């Protein structure tokens, strides 16, 4: 008997509980001397839920604490383990689990302590499993009996099931909320740890970013500099270029699709544009790195030669590099076009037709109506859509990582390489390093600043969009 068997048995008993209770309720119903409160199946559901819940709770709690409890017993039984310090104890215990779960070790050879412990472990685990099965099944039966005898024809089964379902839905929502809170708290605490070592003012206002620090003692060189301004700037700069591409393209195609295109064209074009949104960002990334980047470089080479031959200093001195903010911005812009398009399309379609008719009836042409009435009316919603798109661009990692490089330059030249917050987080967290040094913690501080920024932008954007919706509903 193992956990799977136990689960199956539990399912079967719940089904049986359901059928029994439903059958009894049907009998009540047909005996017709009593009026039952709810449909028979509700008595079934109620009994089934109450049979399942206590048993399931025990099952889950037992499974969670099983391993810890067994380890505790093993440590108390074997004295050699008690003298170990916390970290090596953990390592040894892990080793023991591996031995116990593996087929390769010869468990009969009880010379080593680990093998002894592993044997113990297996023994206790089997005992625990048997105990678990017995207790879970007996609790299921017990709770079924209790519920079965407490339910009468007058029980408001329908209302009670309704209430239980509400709790079920609530608990699902709670899990999502708690996860979010957990993530925020963990990022927050690691960031606080970081700020206890590096001052928050240095992080927010210093312009020098070079997170390489000495990993080993006595290693020469870097003590690390954590001024995040170049990263903030790089993020803003790339998002700005991306919006320069995406905002006009997205908005204008939305206007065309919403107000000019024939239904047939629209039905073909819209799914095609939405495919853009489905392309993984890593594909955009190598499109940027392998196609757009080199194209821009070639263009720069051409410009430079032109500048030299015409003796124009500014053009002759331009940077030539495959990795550039411009390449990333262009590709990222393409990526968020469908995003802006679908929000703008949505917002433009919400402008009531009566207003459009009013404008047409005043003798306005279609484009006059679009620019003078529809766009002003839809502007708040469109701005909200832009803000959502910006927060999307700020959070984008892959394209930048592949095509913009990792050099933290503070530059306004779109042909230079820049780097962004997200890229630096990836760089900081990949490779071999201890988890609690400043370099790693810096990633959490960056993550926190990114999180706060996008949160603020999203809140503002959603507020604007919602306010706009209210205007016409």
């Amino acid at each position: 008997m193992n956990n799977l068997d136990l689960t199956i048995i539990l399912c079967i008993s719940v089904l049986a509980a359901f059928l029994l209770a439903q059958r009894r309720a049907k009998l009540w119903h047909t005996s017709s001397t009593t009026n039952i409160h709810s449909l028979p199946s509700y008595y079934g559901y109620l009994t089934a839920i109450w049979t399942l819940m206590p048993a399931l709770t025990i099952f889950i709690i037992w499974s969670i604490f099983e391993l810890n409890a067994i380890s505790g017993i093993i440590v108390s039984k074997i004295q050699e383990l008690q003298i170990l310090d916390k970290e090596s104890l953990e390592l040894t215990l892990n080793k023991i689990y591996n031995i116990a779960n593996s087929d390769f070790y010869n468990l009969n050879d009880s010379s080593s302590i680990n093998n002894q412990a592993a044997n113990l472990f297996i023994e206790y685990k089997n005992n625990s499993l048997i105990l678990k099965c017995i207790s879970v099944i007996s609790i299921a039966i017990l709770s079924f009996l209790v519920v079965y005898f407490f339910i009468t024809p007058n029980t408001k089964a329908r209302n009670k099931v309704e209430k239980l379902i509400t709790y079920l839905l609530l608990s699902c929502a709670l899990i999502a909320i708690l996860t979010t809170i957990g993530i925020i708290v963990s990022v927050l605490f690691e960031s606080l740890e970081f700020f206890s070592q590096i001052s928050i003012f240095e992080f927010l206002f210093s312009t020098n970013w070079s997170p390489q620090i000495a990993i080993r003692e006595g290693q020469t060189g870097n003590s690390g500099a954590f001024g995040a301004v170049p990263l903030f700037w790089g993020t803003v700069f790339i998002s700005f270029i991306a919006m320069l591409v995406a905002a006009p393209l997205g908005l204008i195609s939305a206007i065309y699709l919403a107000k000019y295109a024939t239904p047939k064209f629209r039905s073909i074009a819209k799914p095609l544009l939405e495919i853009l949104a489905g392309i993984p960002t890593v594909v955009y990334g190598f499109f940027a790195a392998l196609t757009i980047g080199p194209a821009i470089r070639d263009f720069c080479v051409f410009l430079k030669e032109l500048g030299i031959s015409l003796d124009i200093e500014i053009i002759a001195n331009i940077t030539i590099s495959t990795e550039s903010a411009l390449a990333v911005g262009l590709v990222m812009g393409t990526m968020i076009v469908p995003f802006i398009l679908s929000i703008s399309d949505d917002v433009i379609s919400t402008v009531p037709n009566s207003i459009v008719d009013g404008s047409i009836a005043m003798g306005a042409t279609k484009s006059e109506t679009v620019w003078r009435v529809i766009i002003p009316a839809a502007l708040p919603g469109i701005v909200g859509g832009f803000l959502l798109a910006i927060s999307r661009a700020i959070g984008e990692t892959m394209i930048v990582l592949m095509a913009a490089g990792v050099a933290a330059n503070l530059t306004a030249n779109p042909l230079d390489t820049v780097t962004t917050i997200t890229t630096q987080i990836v760089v900081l967290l990949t490779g071999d390093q201890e988890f609690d040094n400043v370099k790693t913690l810096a990633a959490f501080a960056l993550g926190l600043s990114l999180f706060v920024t996008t949160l603020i932008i999203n809140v503002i954007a959603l507020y604007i969009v919602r306010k706009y919706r209210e205007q016409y509903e």
Partner: protein
Amino acid sequence: MKDIKQNLTQELDQTSGNPLLEENIKISCRKVNVYYHKNVQSIFNVSFDIAKNQIMAMIGPSGCGKSTLLRCFNRMNDMIEECVVDGDIKLDGENIHSKNIDPVILRASVGMVFQKPNPFPKSIYDNVAYGPKLHGLVRNSSELDDIVEESLTKAGLWKETKDCLSKAGTSLSGGQQQRLCIARTIAIKPEVILMDEPTSALDPIATATIEELMYELKSSYTIAVVTHSMQQAARISDRTAYFHLGRLVEVNDTNTVFTNPVHELTENYITGRFG
């Protein structure tokens, strides 16, 4: 229902009453048919005239095509893709479907007020200034100010709004909004104003104000009004047209239609037996 339809086709080859005029014609329809989706016909062979500086009321039960016909006069039906208008509609003797008529220009001289007040989400001033700016009717801002004041005065809204012209047009009450829409329409100095149930969304007091307004506007404009209220038609109009299932049943002086209808269907409708 089918029987009524068949009877109609037999009986209504000719519209009863007095559909055609000899002089003073502003709009004339001859054998107008309107189709939706190619085979669904909603207007059948309608011919009648609307006289200059008069109010023509168009009445009839819901779905009888009176709004559709009204929207033919300023070619708003062009906006609906599957809608086909067939027959002659003439404004001042010129066919509005002829090639040298631009529907945009036509709509500037045939204004329209809708059932639901639909001010633009702009200020009161900008709502009225929209048309004149669009058509280049003004050379400077003081001329524009004059047009706005004049139109709002004509629409009877100047007193209420002269101190808050920058307030949003949508913030006004329903009746005020409808008067704003009328002001907006007369700001471009049209010759004809089409009104599609202009008071059906308003309370009786606002309705009375609009009706008085229509009566005053009659001297300078030709008005065609679709209405569900027979009292309204009787109160304000000079001539009345009764439509039934897409056919024009009877046209005559309002007095005659209401006191001495020729056709049985008209009589049933105005005496409230159906519709």
